[in-house]
């Protein structure tokens, strides 16, 4: 049962676009730290031996102001650290900025599993399938407490926070099966909130996406359209209704004037808040009469309705820039 040394992992696999960059900084830090630690230990050990109380070493020294030394050993680390800060910040910003053509995948964290939905409606629990070489953006929220979507092989993680959308952007670089972990403590079975990420070659990914397993029959937007009617959203927001509510066609991604003179971009977050906490940001010229759907519409359903609202903005759906799979088979 004792594993051979070869079986013991000492370093995680690199399988995402940010992993080599993070590792480069990591090794630089390891190098600097080792150098400083070893240097310091050698100096201290020498002093301890040379100036032990039984030694008769010469203890006369020049009366020197320590200021030069102090300035030196403050400035040199300062310069190194500034470099490290800039390097780390650049990689971090790059890693978190979604590519323009990233495929959105929707993730809802719940005690204690990940509920994942692809645009074409393909649904999975816990695991995640992504294509290699194509940028992906996870759009994530939580239905209960804070979770954290962590993929060690990609060196990336981001908190999944109730009440807001966060995102995790990456491109898988190597086909394979990698661990997904929840790294923000979320309750009893926090350590079982795990799964596998399957990085697949694009054609295999497409096949997987199209496979009918009972969940992937309708796209998210189509389900959203149904929900839009089920929850009677269409009663007010639809065409030619008597109730005075703003039309949602073409709203996504555009600037919306609010009561009080501010403007807000109608992004996923804004649409989510408008559905679940209707009165928070009311469009100028409309009365805040929309009821709050908190507790009635789940986070998954909100995501589907948003997908529907988005689809209204990109006729003819789906947009050409997005590699939405059910539009065509390559």
């Amino acid at each position, binding site marked *: 049962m004792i594993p051979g040394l070869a079986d013991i992992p000492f370093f995680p696999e690199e399988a995402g676009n940010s992993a080599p960059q993070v590792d480069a900084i990591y090794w630089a830090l390891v190098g600097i730290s080792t150098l400083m630690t070893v240097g310091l230990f050698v100096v201290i050990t020498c002093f301890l031996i040379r100036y032990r109380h039984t030694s008769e070493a010469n203890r006369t020294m020049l009366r020197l102001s320590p200021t030069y030394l102090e300035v030196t050993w403050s400035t040199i680390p300062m310069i190194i650290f500034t470099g*490290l800060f800039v390097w780390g910040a650049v990689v971090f910003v790059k890693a978190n900025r979604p590519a323009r053509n990233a495929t959105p995948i929707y993730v809802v964290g719940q005690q204690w599993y990940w509920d994942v939905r692809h645009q074409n409606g393909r649904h999975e629990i816990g695991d995640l399938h992504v294509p290699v070489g194509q940028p992906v953006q996870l759009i994530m929220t939580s239905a209960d407490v804070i979770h954290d979507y962590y993929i060690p092989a990609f060196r990336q993680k981001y908190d999944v*926070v109730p009440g807001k959308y966060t995102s995790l952007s990456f491109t898988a670089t190597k086909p394979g099966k990698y661990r997904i972990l929840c790294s923000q403590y979320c309750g009893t079975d*926090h*350590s079982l909130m795990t799964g596998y990420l399957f990085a697949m070659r694009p054609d295999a990914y497409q096949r997987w996406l199209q496979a009918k397993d009972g969940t992937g029959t309708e796209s998210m937007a189509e389900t959203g359209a149904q929900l839009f009617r089920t929850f009677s959203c269409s009663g007010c927001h639809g065409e030619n209704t008597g109730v005075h509510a703003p039309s949602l066609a073409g709203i996504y991604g555009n600037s919306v004037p609010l009561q009080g003179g501010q403007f807000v971009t109608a992004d996923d977050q804004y649409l989510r808040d408008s559905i679940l906490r209707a009165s928070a940001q009311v469009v100028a010229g409309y009365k805040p009469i929309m009821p709050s759907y908190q507790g009635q519409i789940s986070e998954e359903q909100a995501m589907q309705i948003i997908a529907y609202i988005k689809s209204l903005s990109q006729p003819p759906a789906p947009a050409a820039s997005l590699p939405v799979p059910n539009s065509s088979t390559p």
Partner: protein
Amino acid sequence: MSSASTTIEPSPTGPPPERHPVTPDYLNDGYGLRSWLTTHDHKRIGVLYLLSITVFFFIGGWAATMMRLQLLSPHGDLVTSETYNRLFTLHGVTMVWFFLIPSVPTVLGNFVLPMMIGARDVAFPRLNLLSWYIFVLGGIFTLYATISGGVDTGWTFYTPYSTTYANGHVIAMASGIFITGFSTIFTALNFIVTTHTMRAPGMHWFRLPLFVWSLYATSLIMVLATPVIAITLALIALERFAGVGIFDPRIGGDPLLFQHLFWFYSHPAVYIMILPGMGVVSEMITCFSRKRIFGYKFVAYSSLAIAVLGFIVWGHHMFVASQSIYAGMIFSMLSFLVSIPSAIKVFNWTATLYKGRIHFHTPMLYALGFIGLFTIGGLTGLFLATLAVDMHVHDTYFVIAHFHYIMVGGMVMAYLGGLHFWWPKISGRMYNEKLAQFSAAIIFVGFNLTFFPQFILGYLGMPRRYPYYPPQWQVFHILSTAGASVLAVGYLLPLCYLTWSFFFGRHAPPNPWHASGLEWNETSSPPIRTNFEKLPIVTREAYDYPYPIQKDA
């Protein structure tokens, strides 16, 4: 009205060690429980704290032992995950609030601060006693919460988990910490005022021992940060009680706001947990090198710099918590900045060894261990301050290893070192030197074996607070648990031989280490109730040791 004072020149050797057994001292100034529980004497209050935090240290240590045993196997055969979650919460809460934060300030600080500055007591002795009672009251709440089933929030109490979803006695636990917060605040208030107003004639600021500087800086943090955690925990308890509150995402409350408030306290609290240790190390390094500290003012000011800078880096706990990326960058940069004063201290301690006359008594071993472990802990902190690397290692065992190097490798080493250093003053007795050196070595080895593998685990991706984990990682957990058992022996040994020496040890001379400083040269071992027969007038600089022999350039 200091006319009654007298000039006494500190002598490096001190008076002869004979002591008449019936000489009055603070320990025999009144017997019985009552004389202890109503004492205003800062030394007795220090001893009361020593006893209480030792209890909490072993409670927290027990929880850690259970966790390490559980992690021997990846399938978690010992306890359920419910229990495991309660164990790490208990470990975190007791170790942070009931051991590390009070350890050096309330035990060693209370005991030696007035003596170091040449005062008969702290400025507000009754408040000092009151803060011990408040501490005990907070402890009772916490123990109640533990015994009646525990709390599974982790010591961080993140919302909305703690307010809505957690099981267990969150309100009682939060109240315990809230109450203890006032104990911290009152102690700190006492230290600040004492340092300002109670210094003996001639004891100006730059003659203060560096331990006093570090206690002063620590007290500033305590006074300015603790109220924020107090009000935040009160809000948590209120929200849990009322079922609605300002952190509730259902009504638009922001969980990030809680994190800002929490870390505004809890990051400076890390410095509460290390700064006093740094002060203790400065005392021990100089004493056992028989040498003045190198760069006194730099070491003194670096304490204040750490106290201030420590307040403006809290956001590095929130890089991936959906804080704005710009705030992330500001906090990352500031976090690198705070490492500079810490580096200054390490370099100055090293330079102090140069041309000293170095003795290897137990406290010195702890001090050297502190420098080594703190250096590793500090440098790994840079990894976490780097945005891109933190993205990977945040909330993993890398973080666990890092802060244990600071908290245990740093603060606990310093605390034990200081306890051995001032033990002759506290107990009037000497401990067994060989045994003490042996256990210092055991602690050093056990500590590294416990926590170094966790750095590797962390970079592999092992998240914290996991009772179950992938089996490939087991070997590192086995190493870690093996180290923890060595460490446990290392902690039990001092408990035994120090207790033994308290009753049966050889009587201590007033200055067994030939140290400089008023507490060694102007008081007996143990000191009399008012510390000094006559208040001293200070005419010497701090650390007036004979080395180095200086020659003008």
